[in-house]
Structures are given as structure tokens and as C-alpha cells.
């Protein structure tokens, strides 16, 4: 495309019409590739769009119109039109296959079934050199674009433009591109771009993927993203997240705004989160989640298994479940393995391990991590001073404290 920018357009009588400044592309058309619909042309007096129908020849060095220049319609560019140079060239895109944010050096145009369409973005050094020095200059007089410089093309169906305007450019593969990535990869991409693009990407994700992606990011970045999203959507994402995770994010968001978001959430999820927000984030209370499973002591192993099945389907993690009496006091714990190994008609109070190691909410996070690491626990119950089970801390919640390694992604300068 860079070979056409700045090219002089002539009419049928070879009179100059103006110079090409940009290419307009179609929106809302269902075709596999974005179609060129016009040329943005600048003459001495004004900038206007020349409809593609009026272009007779479009080749390197020769761009001709179909009409005399007096007969051409000068349509001014409209605000919501999409232009390739203005909105895509030099901007960042996501290379879906390489899971990387890259910058567009040049764009590849091809003729597909009679239309001029955008087929790929050049993000390699060859495109860069072509843009800077033009197509035809090399020390030995050859064409640089043919020289043996590394070229990297990203086909249209493997790239996700990040400019908010290009959202409307979705062709026959709407929304699909980003969904091909694992949430951890999306998080990686997010950590490489700035605020506007980040919010743009997030808008494209469905609520579930958004929640999972958010989970991979640092609380500060999570908060920034949620603050930028419409409140309705932000609260939907929060509902999808485990309560303890949601509480951490809300802790980073400014008070007033956080309260609004909680109010928009479903009652049940909101209550869980509000409860967790009371605790300091560096104590057991701040770490714990409320997604745990309890059974009464008199239940038999067989009955338990039956009840467990539907729960297992949407539990965050299920390492242990707990046996509590009617007041909610923690009596014992069973791992899934122990349950499977036990005889069908054994009551839980016989099969469970007791006493269970547990902590109160005010125990420090480091102590929690130490306890879990020392006794090789995958989950640790949290009880109030009376012994009532109020939450569990899973290994996920403390794994960052076990190693000093930063697990999560963030934008790095040095």
C-alpha cells in the first residue's frame, strides 16, 4: 500500500487530479476481506473521497480515473469512515498466531474476485524499509522490497486491529479471532498495550473469557480495566470471578465507584464480595474465598457422592469438602480421594479426617502460606473464633507468596 500513498492520480486525459492520501474501506459488508471503496485524494484546494467505481486503472505508477477531472464528484470524507493509513497503518495489531502485539509497517492489497481488498499486514523489516526509503532504492539499484530482507506478513484473518474504530470492520470472522487465544495469552497481549487499546480488546471478549483474562492480571491493572468499562459490564465480569478475586479487584478501585459496582451485582455474589472486603488483604480473611462445599456428618458416602456431582460442575476448585454441624461449626474434612475410597454406607463422621487444621481470619497471609506449605495442604479452611467455617484459602491464593517470582504479567520498561 505504501507504494500508492502520495501517488498522483490522473484523469482520462492524463491531467492530474490530486495525490492519494489514504484508502477508504467498506464497513458492514460481509466479505472475507475488507474491500477498498474509495481513494482519499488531496488536490491543491481540498481533500475528498474518489469512489472506487470511478477508478479505471490502479497500478504502481499509474492511477487513472474513469472520467474527466471536471466530471468527478468531490465527496468530503465523513467522520465515521474508516481509512487504512489513518486507522491501521503504524498502529498496533494483535498477531493471533504468534500471540504478540506488533506494529503495522505496511499493508498488502490484492485483487480478489474483481475487488481490491486488504489481505495482510506487513510487520517485518522489509515493510519498514519500503516505507522509509521508498520501493526502488537500493545500493545496487534493485528494488528494496525484493531484496532479501526478512518479511513478515500477517494475514487478515489472523490479526486483530486495536484501533477502536476498526471494530466495525469485522468481516466474516466476527469476534472469533481473539477467542482463539487462551485467556493467559490475552492477558499477555493486554500487558503490551496502552489503556485505549486495552479497553478496546476487553470490549470484544465475552463475559466469561473476560473474567478469566482478568484473573491473570495484576490487581492494579484489573482495577484500571474495570474502571474504564461501562459499569453494567464491569459488574457482570465481577460476578463471574471467584468472590475473593473480585474482592481484591474492588479493593483497588476507588471507594465510591466500587460501591456502585457491588450494587449492580447479583445479590448473592454481591453479599459474598462485601463480606470479604471487610478483611485486610494480607490476612487469611482477605485471601479466603467463599466457594466451599459442606455436608452434615450423618450423610453416607453414597448420598454425598450423589450430591457432589452437580456441585463439582461449577466449583472453582474442589480439593476437599467439609463436614459441619447444624450451627456451621467445622467438624472434619474429606478429600475427594478419601471419599471415593470409602465404603458406600459409611456415614461421613466416620470417614472424615478430624481434627482439621484451620486458621482464623486475622492470621497473616505469610503465616497461612507457611502452614499450607509445611503441611502440604491444597486448601485451608478459615473459621471464626467459635469454629464456624466461613471460608477456604486454596493453594492458588497463596502461590505467589510461596515463591518470590512475579507470576503475573505487567508492562515492563527495563
Amino acid at each position, binding site marked *: 500500500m505504501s507504494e500508492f500513498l502520495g501517488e498522483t492520480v490522473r484523469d482520462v486525459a492524463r491531467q492530474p487530479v490530486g495525490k492519494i492520501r489514504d484508502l477508504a474501506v467498506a464497513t458492514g459488508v460481509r466479505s472475507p476481506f475488507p474491500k477498498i471503496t474509495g481513494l482519499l485524494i488531496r488536490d491543491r484546494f481540498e481533500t475528498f473521497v474518489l469512489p472506487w467505481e470511478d477508478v479505471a486503472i490502479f497500478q504502481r505508477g499509474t492511477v487513472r480515473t474513469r472520467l474527466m477531472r471536471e466530471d468527478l464528484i468531490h465527496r468530503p470524507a465523513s467522520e465515521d469512515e474508516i481509512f487504512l493509513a489513518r486507522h491501521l497503518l503504524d*498502529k498496533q495489531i494483535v498477531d493471533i498466531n504468534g500471540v504478540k502485539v506488533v506494529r503495522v509497517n505496511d499493508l498488502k492489497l490484492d485483487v480478489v474476485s474483481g475487488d481490491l481488498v486488504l489481505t495482510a499486514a506487513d510487520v517485518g523489516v522489509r515493510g519498514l524499509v519500503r516505507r522509509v526509503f521508498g520501493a526502488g532504492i537500493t545500493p545496487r539499484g534493485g528494488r528494496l522490497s525484493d531484496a532479501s530482507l526478512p518479511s513478515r506478513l500477517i494475514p487478515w484473518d489472523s490479526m486483530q486491529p486495536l484501533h477502536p474504530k476498526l471494530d466495525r470492520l469485522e468481516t466474516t470472522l466476527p469476534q472469533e479471532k481473539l477467542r482463539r487465544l487462551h485467556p493467559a495469552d490475552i492477558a499477555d497481549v493486554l500487558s503490551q498495550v496502552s489503556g485505549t487499546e486495552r479497553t478496546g480488546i476487553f470490549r470484544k471478549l465475552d463475559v466469561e473469557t473476560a473474567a478469566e483474562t482478568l484473573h491473570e492480571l495484576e490487581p492494579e491493572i484489573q482495577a484500571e480495566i474495570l474502571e474504564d468499562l461501562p459499569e453494567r459490564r464491569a459488574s457482570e465480569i465481577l460476578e463471574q470471578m471467584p468472590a475473593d478475586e473480585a474482592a481484591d479487584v474492588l479493593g483497588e478501585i476507588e471507594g465510591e465507584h466500587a460501591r456502585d459496582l457491588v450494587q449492580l451485582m447479583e445479590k448473592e455474589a454481591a453479599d459474598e464480595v462485601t463480606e470479604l472486603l471487610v478483611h485486610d488483604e494480607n490476612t487469611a480473611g482477605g485471601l479466603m474465598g467463599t466457594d466451599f462445599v459442606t455436608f452434615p456428618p450423618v450423610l453416607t458416602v453414597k448420598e454425598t457422592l450423589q450430591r457432589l456431582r452437580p456441585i463439582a460442575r461449577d466449583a472453582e476448585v474442589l480439593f476437599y469438602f467439609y463436614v459441619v454441624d447444624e450451627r456451621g461449626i467445622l467438624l472434619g474434612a474429606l478429600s475427594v480421594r478419601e471419599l471415593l475410597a470409602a465404603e458406600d454406607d459409611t456415614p461421613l463422621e466416620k470417614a472424615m479426617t478430624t481434627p482439621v487444621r484451620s486458621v482464623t481470619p486475622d492470621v497473616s497471609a505469610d503465616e497461612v502460606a507457611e502452614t499450607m506449605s509445611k503441611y502440604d495442604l491444597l486448601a485451608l479452611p478459615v473459621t471464626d473464633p467459635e469454629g464456624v467455617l466461613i471460608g477456604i484459602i486454596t493453594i492458588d491464593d497463596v502461590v505467589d507468596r510461596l515463591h518470590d517470582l512475579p507470576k503475573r504479567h505487567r508492562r515492563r520498561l*527495563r
Partner: protein
Amino acid sequence: MIAPAAAAAGPRPDARTWRRRLTVFLAILGPGIITANVDNDAGGIATYSIAGAHFGYSLLWTLLPITLALIVVQEMSARLGAITGKGLGELIRENYGLRATFYLLVALLVTDIGNTVAEFAGWAAALEIFGIPRWVSVPIGAFVVWWIVVKGNYKTVEKIFLIACTVYLTYIVSALFARPLWKDVLKQTFHPRIESSAAWILMIIGIVGTTIAPWMQFYLQASIVEKRIGAEEYRLSRWDVIVGCVLTDVIAFFIIVACGATLFPHGIRIAGAEQAALALKPLAGKWAGTLFAFGLANASLFAASILPLATAYSICEGLGFEAGVDKSWSEAPQFNALYTSMIVIGAGIILIPGVPLFPVLFLSQVLNGLLLPFVLVFMCLLVNRADLMGEHVNGRVWNWVAWGTSAAMIALTLGLVVTSVWPGLFPAA
């Protein structure tokens, strides 16, 4: 059954709020102050010393407009970073295309190689005072820089350098001990005097270039982006920037006064570090050399470990190459090649026998001054774009100062060319 959620326990307690506010403030504090300290690098010390020794107090007045310009320019960098969340190279690329970006970045690379050479020159000059020859000191310096870049924990290193930077305060004490004629100092500070000799113009370009160095604008903006300071935190961050700018120029002021009081009256020309060190004699006596050498060595190494990296980041970001110190050669070839070659070239030029250290230090700062207007023009254009900055575009005063600085630097550059080609053009010269 899933455990029933406990009753709602009311809104978030306020205990978190004030603590959070304090953390926010401490977290954003830094980019401005650090940038200011890097600003007084080897090139800076040399340039201010030469200004004081060769021109006495007569250039002091320039520090007032320069401080104003510095505050305006740095504030613009920080604001661009905070509002757009993007680096300067990225912004220029996205808004003014690849070709303009490419040539600007090539100029930045050349200038910054000059600056890196200057840092190693400062390092070599400092260690020569201790009697260590440069063919020993420079390779060691280059290795230390490389080690800091590749293996070091940058945050710790940065703190050590920052603490060592307090050695500049000795210039304030030394200037006081030298008993300058304060009446004279004040008079010259508020009484602008303009000359038209090539040497004078060169000096001014050097002072502006070292104080408002182009690479610092890239660096400051990148730091703001990296710290993820947004529009809200920016109110606080602005003070960090302003304090940093004032600090830079207070130190510059006292370096010039110290040199103006001790060296200028005796007509001592600065040809090397030994002469520049004499400015600290009123304070440190025979230890002046040691003190000066320590300050210069620290400043040189501090800047030398930041500069190649910051430049490599700016260039890769603008041209869309992969960048990051934790990336291998095959992952980020351009990035690794850039900072490595900058260190190698920077150190290598100093090892060429007979290269004069102080002139190199000074001329690299002139190069900064020549590039500055181009960077400024882009910054001014960007910061005034409502589509990027929204309500945070420049105010009228800010625009006047920023455009005025660009215009003044272009005028000075043209003036330098004219007076160099026709030295006798202005009879007063």
C-alpha cells in the same frame, strides 16, 4: 450444599483509603526526581563547569529562562505519558508516520551515542584523577554498565546512584566557601547579556542541550507510562516533575558560581577533569580532586547505565521491534544489538588514543541542543491534539514557552552556522 453467604457487612472500611492514598503518592514519586538527577550527568557537569570557568557569572541569567523551559517541556512529556499511556516514539509513529519517526530516531541514536561517549569520557576523566589510565578504567566501566543492564536489579542500583547523587550538594557548599561577590552574582543572574560570537552561541546551545536533553523526554515519558500514572495521579506527579526541574537547575547554578568564583578570575581554561575539580577546592582543599572524581564517576556510570537502554527502548518502540532486557538475542535482535553497540561504541571511542575527554563531553551536549527543537516540535504538536489529550491539551502560556524554546534553539543553531562561517559578520563579536 454451598455454604450460605454471610450477611452483608457494610461498605469497605476507610482504613484502606488513606493508606492507599499514601502508597499512590509514594509510588508515583520518582520519575521527575530521577530524571532530574540523570540530567546532571557527566556532560552536564562538564558543560556547567566550562560555562562558569570561561564565562564567569555572565551566563547565569540563562538559567532562569532555561528552568522555565525545562519545567514546561518535562511537564509536557509527563502529561503526554500519563494521558495517552504511550511512549513518545510510539505517539510520533502513530500520528506522524514511519518516515518522520525513522529519521527522528536515527538522529536520537546518533545524539545518544554521543551522550554515551560522553558518559564514558566522564568516567575515564574521573578515574584519571585517581591515577587509573583509561585503557583500564573504560573496559571496567563498560563491563559494569553491561552487568547492570543484563543482570542487575535495576531498582536497587537506581537507589544507590540516587544516594550518591547527593555529592552534588558539595557544589553549593563550595560555592559558598569560595566567597563569590554575591552582588555580582545576583546582578548577572537578572541582567541578560547577549553576545554574538560563535563560542558564546555554542556555549548556550550546550547549556540548553544538556539541561533539556532530548533523550530525557523519551525517558521521562516512558517512566510515567511504566509506573502507570494516569490522569488522576498526574496531579501529584506534576509536583514531582517540577521539583526535579528546579533541583537540576539549582545544582547547575551553583556549579557555575563555584567555577566562576574559583577558576574564572585566574583565567583557568578547563581542558580536563583536574581543572574542573579545582572548583571544589574551597570546600575540600586537597581532597577536591577526590570529591570531584567521585561525583563525576557516579554521575557518568548512572547515566551510562540508563542511556543505552532508554535509547534502545525508544527506538524499538517507535519502529515496532521487540524490546525487553529479559529477551534473548533471537527474540529481540534489534533491541539487544542497539544497546550493546551503544555501550561498545561509547567505550570504544574513548579508548582511541588521544581523544580529548572534556571537549567530547561538551560537544555531545551541543548535539543534544541541535536535536532538541525537532523533538520539541513533535511534542508541541502532539500535546495540542484534542483527539489524544482531550481536556489536557496545552494552555496558552505553556504553548508560548514551548514554541518559544523551539524557535530560540533553531535561531541559535542558525546563528552558530552563520557565525562559524563568517566570524566577522557581527562587529561586536
